[in-house]
């Protein structure tokens, strides 16, 4: 994981914009970015504890350096002059020694440095007379270098940093002029640079907070019958391996682009913005995915993983049928055997999807037990998996189940949030003020939210299903009404009675009709990072009409819950704010329900 240093900071807002960097740099040498020790001390207070404070010096005396180290205080010192080894030895904090690279001979010099880190730069950069040019990275590629002490600088920007990292594999990248506009630091460029440099690795840092057996705080774990433990452990290892394999990631992204049709637009909803009279509304268009919802992002990822594990049989559960269709589709594409369990009740209300699955060659098994909805379909899929575990992969459709499923499904769905972040920065030059997504098991929401979790300024709101109302006994509002419990392999929040029997959920939307919520959401609800609101059947239906008529987009019933919640949020937001809605799917599958419920619509 490559670290990022933002150098030459002089203003408060830029220090804040660099909050997700690993290091910030203050220049004490003569330069247009020079700051006093006192100023550096003030700025340093705004950065998080974990961020390295690095002071940049050119031929300064030991006393001057030591004073800065103690006063700011600095955690590292970076030297750009002709400092002696003796001086380097005296400095109490780790030292970075800078070198200009012009020829292969210059590269050789790096190895003789006694400093903890070596920084490589193009000749004549800022501190000694300023070019900000890129040097020939290929000089480093075949050199005999310790990459774990290499810091790469010189002309980096958001567009070239990925290439620079993959070519030189440095410990850290250092940027200054590449995140400036007209000679001044630029918050958006700082954030974009960090995003580009870190990409997926940002998630890996966040994962460090999760313990190895897959808990999010107190939620998660692997609460499965012993027969499944082997499969779950194997999956854990296989996913860990695949996640870090560039070939796997490349293949996954290849299918997202060429087969699913990503990336999906972040559409500005002009008429909804006007009608609601509040913030600017943007729609993340998961409805445009092949098969009509976000579910396919996950189905592709898991199907590729299953094949990597040598499994060519797939079992899945489905509620609305979107995940079943996505799975059946991918199984057709990769010639995999596919069985989908679906509640009897859902089969009735999602007939179109049932037929689609059959047409795609999948076997659809009707589940008549319990309420004949998603929970019961998961039970049957788990039983089927227990019985056929040696050659079958359970392709779970939401951020649920035993570890590693919740993490893996989230990672595959994070493409939603990553694209959104990049797109909104491009369009608006800043992050949104709020994002709303619907939550069934929680996969589209966690995929959208995850890349924004660390951005404290972005409010995240999940919309769950209130069915006939949270005060009736016909709802699926797990976070509003549920409590801690173990279901389908994980500790999470569930709807249950006093005796610990799981209750039936109710929602007009088959995809939200589930009495549990994935473990990561349960954790995010507890720690307050995401707030969850409940939307009734009627509110969702009203939003279906509203969005259809204002934007010409007929949303899925599930997504309509997010739209209804967004409308409420918009009421207390202002015109200079931005609100993003995740439109998780399109409404084709719900047309029978719409026709029935909205009969007489004029």
């Amino acid at each position: 994981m490559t670290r990022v240093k933002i150098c030459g900071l002089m203003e408060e807002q830029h220090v804040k914009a660099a909050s997700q960097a690993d290091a910030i740099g203050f220049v004490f040498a003569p330069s247009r970015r020079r700051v006093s020790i006192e100023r550096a001390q003030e700025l340093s207070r705004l950065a998080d504890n974990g961020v390295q404070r690095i002071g940049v010096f050119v031929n300064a005396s030991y006393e001057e350096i030591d004073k800065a180290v103690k006063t700011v205080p600095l955690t590292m010192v970076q030297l750009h002059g002709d400092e002696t080894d003796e001086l380097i030895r005296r400095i109490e904090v780790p030292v970075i020694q800078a070198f200009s690279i012009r020829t292969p001979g210059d590269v050789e010099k790096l190895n003789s440095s006694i400093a903890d880190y070596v920084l490589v730069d193009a000749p004549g950069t800022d501190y000694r007379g300023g070019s900000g040019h890129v040097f020939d990275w290929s000089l480093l590629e075949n050199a005999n270098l310790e990459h774990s002490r290499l810091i790469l600088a010189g002309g980096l920007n958001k567009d070239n940093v990925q290439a620079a990292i993959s070519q030189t594999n440095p410990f850290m990248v250092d940027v200054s002029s590449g995140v400036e506009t007209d000679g001044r630091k630029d918050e958006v460029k700082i954030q974009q640079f960090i995003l580009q440099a870190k990409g997926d690795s940002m998630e890996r840092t966040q994962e460090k907070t999760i313990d190895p057996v897959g808990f999010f705080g107190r939620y998660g774990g692997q609460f499965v019958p012993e027969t499944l433990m082997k499969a779950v452990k194997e999956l854990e290892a296989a996913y860990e391996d695949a996640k870090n394999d560039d070939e796997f990631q490349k293949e996954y992204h290849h299918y997202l682009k060429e087969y699913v049709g990503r990336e999906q637009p972040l559409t500005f909803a002009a008429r909804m913005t006007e009608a609601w009279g509040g913030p600017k509304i943007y729609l993340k268009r998961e409805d445009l995915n092949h098969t009509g919802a976000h579910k396919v992002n996950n189905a592709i990822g898991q199907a590729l993983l299953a094949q990597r594990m040598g499994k060519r049989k797939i079992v899945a559960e489905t509620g609305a049928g979107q995940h079943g269709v996505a799975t059946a589709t991918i199984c057709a594409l990769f010639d995999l055997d596919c069985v989908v369990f679906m509640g009897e009740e859902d089969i009735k209300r999602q007939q179109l999807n049932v037929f689609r699955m059959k047409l795609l060659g999948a076997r659809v098994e009707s589940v008549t037990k319990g309420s004949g909805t998603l929970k019961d379909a998961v039970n049957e899929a788990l039983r089927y998996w227990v019985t056929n575990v040696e050659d079958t992969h359970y392709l779970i459709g939401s951020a649920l189940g035993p570890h590693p499923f919740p993490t893996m499904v989230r990672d595959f769905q994070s493409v939603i949030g990553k694209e959104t972040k990049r797109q909104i920065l491009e369009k608006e030059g800043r992050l949104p003020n709020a994002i709303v997504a619907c939550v069934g098991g929680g996969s589209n929401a966690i995929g959208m939210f995850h890349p924004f979790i660390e951005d404290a300024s972005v409010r995240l709101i999940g919309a769950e299903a209130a069915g006939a109302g949270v005060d009736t006994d016909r709802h699926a509002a797990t976070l509003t009404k549920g409590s801690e419990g173990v279901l389908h392999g994980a500790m999470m929040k569930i709807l249950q009675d006093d005796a610990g029997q799981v209750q039936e959920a109710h929602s007009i939307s088959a995809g939200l009709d589930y009495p549990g919520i994935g473990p990561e959401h349960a954790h995010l609800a507890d720690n307050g990072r995401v707030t969850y609101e409940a939307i009734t059947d009627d509110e969702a239906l009203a939003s279906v009409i509203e969005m259809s008529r204002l934007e010409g987009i007929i949303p899925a019933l599930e997504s309509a819950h997010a739209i209804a919640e967004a409308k409420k949020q918009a009421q207390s937001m202002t015109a200079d704010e931005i609100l993003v809605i995740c439109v998780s799917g399109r409404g084709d599958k719900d047309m029978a329900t719409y026709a029935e419920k909205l009969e007489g619509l004029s």
Partner: protein
Amino acid sequence: MKRLAELKQAGHKAFVAYIMAGDGGIEKLGEQIQHLQERGVTAIEVGIPFSDPVADGPTIEAAGNRALAEGITLEKVLEEMQRFDFDVKVPLVIMTYLNPVIRFGAERFTQEAKKAGASGIIIPDLPFEHRQLIEPFAKQHELVLIQLVTLTTIESRLEEILKQAEGFVYAVTVTGITGSRDELAEEVGAFTRKVRDLSPVPVYAGFGISKESHVDMLRDDVDGFIVGSAIVQAFHEGRIEDVEPLIDAVTAPHSV
């Protein structure tokens, strides 16, 4: 539970019966236990109904649903057991999914289970890795937490699990859910032999055991048998005498 080790030493096989508590009404629980102990079973597993029993096949799931329809809860079962006015002569083991326990409170559960005369607990969806949720409380109240091992348990875990096993080890003899089977897979014998070699406590075979032919097949490789679906169904249909030959086939002295 000590009795189980003694039985093994004496060269006798154990017969463990599983019943669904409250199937047919809570008053049936005491009757069934009495009946089974009179008929010579070694121990009894008292099953607690759960809404989502993913380790169970149709027979036990249906029995659980009948019990739930009678309003049976973990609490009611433990209360009923505390009211028994007959002599319980065999070890009772509570078999429950994890969620009712979490809801009831792990500490309170172990305390009440002890008061109810139980000697052990089996929780099929609590893997060895997460036993900390329950085990400390179980120890405190002198209940053993029975572990399951299966045909798919990988070698390294098998050793770990068996090293710490107490009471008896539940060797799952099918790759699948509970329920009667016509035949057991060939490799089961080798599996139970391996488990028995490594286990410090008796090893009982369960899941799918419903016929004398199963008992004959595994007799020399295990210390006992656990029979669930066949007993649950027989009680439900009022023909428990049909299972009695199976009990005898296991427990009758046998030339070794």
